[in-house]
């Protein structure tokens, strides 16, 4: 199977899982379908040449974050009793909002590297579709020279060093805040 066929299979699986996630009455089932969406996205990241992001997606999202969600669901023992789906008028509003948003975002499906090159004013169609994108060519060739992780570590620890350090402060604040909020008495 070519990469495109696998991509469309995974994309269909991701969309169906996401739809089941928002319509399942049982919260645990809902969370499990969300995990399935995240796994499909991780596989799609591999097809899009972002192997390290795929690994992080499985470890952090499908692993840590969803375990946290399941932990809280089981701790609170919620999900019993009636459905929490809203009534028909709100569902109609949801369809209208979703349809409007999708109509606006639908144009994204027509984006191609050649079209983006035209927007940038570069010479489109000059040989390869990547002709107008030096950064993209670096992104394609850097993993071969530096390895998949090294290619991402380079900009992370040079260009984005200050945001990276600020991230650690954010995580510390979130950890302290979560403890303070969840504790009965301080």
């Amino acid at each position, binding site marked *: 199977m070519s990469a495109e066929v696998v991509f469309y299979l995974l994309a269909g699986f*991701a969309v169906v899982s996401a739809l089941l*996630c928002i319509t399942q009455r049982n919260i645990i089932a809902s969370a499990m379908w969300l995990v399935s*969406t995240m796994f499909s996205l991780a596989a799609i990241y591999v097809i899009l040449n972002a192997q390290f992001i795929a690994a992080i997606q499985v470890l952090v999202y499908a692993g840590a974050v969803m375990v946290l969600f399941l932990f809280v669901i089981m701790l609170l023992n919620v999900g019993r009793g009636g459905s929490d789906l809203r009534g028909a008028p709100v569902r109609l509003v949801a369809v209208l909002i979703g349809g409007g948003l999708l109509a606006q975002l639908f144009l994204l499906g027509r984006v191609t*590297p050649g079209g983006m090159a035209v927007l940038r004013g570069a010479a489109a169609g000059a040989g390869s579709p990547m002709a107008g994108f030096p950064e993209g060519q670096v992104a394609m060739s850097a993993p071969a020279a530096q390895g998949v992780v090294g290619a991402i570590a380079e900009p992370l620890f040079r260009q984005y060093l200050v945001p990276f350090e600020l*991230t650690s402060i954010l995580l510390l604040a979130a950890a302290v805040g979560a403890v303070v909020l969840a504790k009965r008495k301080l």
Partner: protein
Amino acid sequence: MLLGPSLLLSALLFTIGVAGVVIRRNAIVLFMCVELMLNAVNLTFVALSQVLGLAGQVIVFFVMTVAAAEAAVGLAIILAVFRHTRSVDLKNINLLQG
């Protein structure tokens, strides 16, 4: 490459996330729908990083960090609210309605 199809899939997943926030009343499911939207945005970053450089994949890291922090604090708030009202249903959480 698959740039257009990836962005279209991202748009679909984001729309499903928004619809989920509108139609559900359970606070935990609302948080899961927000995670779904963040995942859709991550897919956009990864797809465009093929063309516009590896900085997009670095941004995905930051988005994941913020998502993890948001989930931790949000679930702690849900726990605190559950102790107060014995429910995570949004129709029972109306303290600010006066």
